[in-house]
């Protein structure tokens, strides 16, 4: 993909960067430094700002001119991908992000994004530290409350945070540095051009040193003003691009890190919901309200829209009360449904293939893949604190779309949005869950009904059974080939509807006219924006259709990509096999992008592609390109009976991925150590959704109810050998990384399995068709009893 950024010259300007110099020649010839507009705000201490999204200047003209889905031409995702769209859509509505420098020399930045483990607070602090020449430990990043004036620009998703905030944060920090230099020049009487900054201080040629802290008030502005700045040259970076530990690591390992349920809000007592036995079932009546209200510790019991809420002194007593409730349940939205009935609906909804009858000598690979429901549950279950009063409300929760939460909660409560304060707390994982505010909505409803604050938490069993899922889908693929060449590639992805109701929908609606997919549905737009074949496969069409809105769904890490790309990479292996080519060599030959080819080459070399392996074991290789980034994964799997037959109590063992080599190119890796962590997590997710973690739907409910039933990757499934290679940063801007590795890992593990067993896998996760490896919990009561044998199970 061509990059919009003109090359910069080597000249580094260390002066104030403030408006004294006229704007440099920019653009066409790629000469000169680009100048950016930031702001200094009237405040008692230095406060600077930049417009979020300001760097995305104009949409590429190509986007408007490109035709839709013309074979062999770039698809929409190659012209304008989801990241680009999120960034562009922010333009007309975006507002300011601000950095404040205090008299103790610290810089403060409230990031309008959610931190759910992906490391954006650390990487954002690094960007501030870089541009401000401030030690990293002097930068304090917090999570901003819902800021309705940011409109769509407070959504954490699409691996977009660093991509969209990198330049605005730099601009604001550069304005601050310029003001500090200016203030120092007045104090010292030295010309501003002679001054430099280092480690949180301004230095004069004579060796005088003024700390940012003592300059903070002097650098403050009396009135708001726009300021032009240049940004530091990449060759001068000292922080960005270095491996840094997470800034919140100490809090995490000492137990001091506070998640929503760790907050102490006065009188916000533990609250849980007794939920229906089938998906989205409803309460008809409750037979024993008074009896349950009288249980030890219980303060309140009330029927709400999703079940029966109980509030009490401890969550343990809430569990007991939930179990004691005698509820007459009405039907839900998926009554009687099972995996088989959903599969049948998907078959009926599948769009037809269009390749006509095959010419002589042309053959086809035809395959249909099934991806069962899987859970995007985080380890922290859905939870929120709500304190709803007569004319106001306050919410605490980890939210990736806090403005949407604020507006929808306000609507529900009949309050103006400004009367609802929404605090974004640290999140214990997301994987798509925190795009929604299900628990916050419920907490607000319960708090309103009781007239009391509540600390509402979902039970784990509810989180699996009634929580959101990655929807079940199928992918039909037909690839035709002749004389060793691939002529056509068609893919029809059919999915239970994915809920995009977290606000991004409105965002896209406003932008959709710009796209060559204007007449498509919203989901189809998302599909076209995210799905791109990394290979030249002749006439290529990839289309989505959806069915059935009866399920609680949402985007899971990577949305469609892990499934769509897994299917495609398996077909690549099959094409290679049938045409007598090596799978790596064929991918390499057909690769569109040189960066994708480079990561593929890297893992093939580092992972010793093609090495001799024992029967029942094999390598698999795959690439994935998305979010302006590229990843390749080489996985080795052991499918021998001694491995698949391993016995671990209450666990699923199965084939083991024994080694993974991953190479990643994000253009510019702000924090390579954090990037490695994101790849590692994505690999664990890819292994899980390929081999072990799926939901079984029977009789209108999911069977899985605990982590010993929903088999996310555990230590015994973890590859003992793991190598992650961060490619040299050759780009000017960081691409996305949070979701990137899942698709590559899923595809590589599936391909390795296919090569180890000699059979292309078509149903995922692979263990889904096996006899259930657990005894399902009852659905009434909806949650299991708390165990009492903990003393006997100390280890």
């Amino acid at each position, binding site marked *: 993909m061509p990059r919009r950024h003109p090359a910069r010259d080597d000249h580094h300007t260390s002066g104030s960067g403030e408006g004294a110099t006229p704007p440099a020649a920019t653009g066409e010839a790629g000469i000169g430094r680009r100048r950016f507009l930031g702001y200094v705000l009237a405040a008692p201490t230095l406060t600077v700002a930049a417009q979020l999204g300001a760097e995305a200047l104009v949409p590429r003209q190509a986007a408007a001119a490109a035709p839709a889905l013309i074979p062999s031409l770039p698809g929409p995702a190659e012209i304008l991908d989801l990241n680009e769209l999120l960034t562009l859509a922010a333009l007309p509505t975006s507002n300011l992000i601000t950095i404040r420098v205090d008299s103790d020399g610290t810089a403060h930045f409230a990031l309008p994004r959610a931190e759910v*483990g992906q*490391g954006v607070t650390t990487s954002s602090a690094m960007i501030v530290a870089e541009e401000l020449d401030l030690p990293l430990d002097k930068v304090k990043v917090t999570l901003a409350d819902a800021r309705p004036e940011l409109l769509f620009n407070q959504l954490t998703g699409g691996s977009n945070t660093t991509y969209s905030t990198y330049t605005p944060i730099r601009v604001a920090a550069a304005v601050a540095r310029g003001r500090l230099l200016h203030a120092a020049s007045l104090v010292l009487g030295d010309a501003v051009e002679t001054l430099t900054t280092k480690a949180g201080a301004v230095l004069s040629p004579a060796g005088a040193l003024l700390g940012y802290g003592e300059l903070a008030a002097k650098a403050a502005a009396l009135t708001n003003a726009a300021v032009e700045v240049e940004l530091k040259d990449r060759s001068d970076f000292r922080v960005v691009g270095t491996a840094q*530990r*997470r800034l919140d*690591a100490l*809090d*995490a*390992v*000492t*137990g001091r*890190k506070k998640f929503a*349920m*760790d907050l*102490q809000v006065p009188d916000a007592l*533990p609250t849980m919901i007794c939920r229906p036995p089938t998906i989205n079932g409803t309460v008809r009546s409750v037979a024993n309200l008074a009896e349950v209200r009288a249980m*030890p*510790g219980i303060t309140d019991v009330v029927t709400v829209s999703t079940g029966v809420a109980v509030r009490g*002194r*401890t*969550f*343990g*007593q809430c569990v007991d009360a939930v179990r004691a409730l005698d509820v007459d349940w009405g039907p839900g939205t998926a009554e009687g449904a099972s995996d088989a009935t959903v599969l049948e609906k998907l078959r009926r909804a599948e769009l037809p293939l269009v390749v006509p009858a095959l010419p002589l000598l042309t053959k086809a690979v035809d395959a249909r893949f099934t991806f069962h429901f899987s859970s995007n549950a*985080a*380890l*922290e*279950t859905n939870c929120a604190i709500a304190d709803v009063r007569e004319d106001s409300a306050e919410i605490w929760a980890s939210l990736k779309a806090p403005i949407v939460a604020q507006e929808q909660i306000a609507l529900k409560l009949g309050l103006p949005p400004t009367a609802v304060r929404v605090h974004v707390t*640290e*999140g*214990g*994982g997301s994987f798509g869950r925190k795009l929604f505010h299900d628990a916050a909505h419920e907490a607000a409803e319960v708090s309103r009904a009781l007239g009391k604050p509540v600390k509402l*938490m979902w*039970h*784990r069993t509810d989180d699996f059974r009634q929580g959101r899922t990655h929807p079940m889908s199928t992918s039909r693929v037909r690839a035709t080939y002749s004389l060793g060449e691939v002529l056509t590639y068609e893919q029809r992805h059919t999915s239970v509807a994915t809920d995009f109701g977290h606000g991004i929908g409105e965002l896209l609606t406003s932008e959709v006219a710009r796209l060559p997919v204007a007449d498509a549905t919203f989901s189809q737009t998302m599909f076209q924006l995210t799905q791109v074949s990394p290979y030249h496969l002749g006439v290529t069409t990839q289309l989505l259709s959806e069915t059935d809105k009866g399920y609680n769904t949402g985007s899971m890490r990577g949305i469609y990509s892990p499934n769509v790309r897994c299917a495609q990479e398996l077909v690549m292996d099959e094409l290679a096999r049938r045409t007598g080519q090596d799978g790596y060599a064929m991918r390499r030959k057909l690769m569109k992008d040189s960066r994708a080819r480079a990561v593929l080459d890297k893992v093939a070399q580092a992972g010793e592609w093609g090495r001799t392996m024992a029967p029942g074991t094999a390598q698999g290789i795959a690439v994935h390109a998305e979010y302006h980034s590229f990843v390749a994964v080489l996985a080795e799997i052991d499918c021998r009976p001694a491995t698949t037959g391993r016995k*671990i109590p*209450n666990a699923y063992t199965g084939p083991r991925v024994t080694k993974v080599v991953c190479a990643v190119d994000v253009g510019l890796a702000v924090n390579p*150590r954090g990037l490695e*962590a994101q790849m*590692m*997590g*994505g*690999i*664990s*997710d890819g292994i899980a959704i390929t081999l072990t973690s799926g939901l079984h739907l029977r009789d209108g409910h999911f069977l899985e109810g*605990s*982590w*010993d039933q929903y088999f*996310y*990757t*555990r*230590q*015994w499934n*973890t*590859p003992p050998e793991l190598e992650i290679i961060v490619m040299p940063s050759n780009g000017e801007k960081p691409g996305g990384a949070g979701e990137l590795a899942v698709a590559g890992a899923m595809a590589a593990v599936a391909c390795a399995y296919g090569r180890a067993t000699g059979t292309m896998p078509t149903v995922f996760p692979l263990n889904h068709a096996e006899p259930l490896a657990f005894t399902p919990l009852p659905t009434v009561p909806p949650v*299991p009893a*708390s*165990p009492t044998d*903990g*003393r006997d199970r*100390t*280890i």
Partner: protein
Amino acid sequence: MPQHTFILNGKAVTADVEGDVRLLWVLRDVLGVTGPKYGCGVGVCRACTSHLNGKAFTPCAVPVDDLAPTDEVTTIEGLPDTVGSDLHPMQEAWLDLDVAQCGFCQPGQIMAAVATVRRAREAGREITEADLDTIRNICRCGTYHRIRQAVLEGSRRME
């Protein structure tokens, strides 16, 4: 209301609460000790892993009634004190290897790791890859590989 006394992080504490309430909720909801996390409530995810008289256990599965005044409960908050330091060597290894992502499971992981090393030492040996495979704690961010490295590194640093 019945009173329950036990030793928490080196100090005797008394909680006024019904005896069948599981210790996790006594810690979190009554005593305000929030290091141990809720991830399942049935002793599976092990996010609440703490130590009972030096051994790993899940407070979500122990009624507070089951504790005697002499029982020593150690949560992540009290782990450094067991070695008379600001941080336990296992926590230092965790920091050096930058294990945590969201951090939610990490207190439980560290408490499980310390107990795993202790158990091997009591058996007169050092931990192995096979021991790492027995750690049941869920990390939904999937940091398992760094956890393995950190347990081995922490083990080397533990006296």
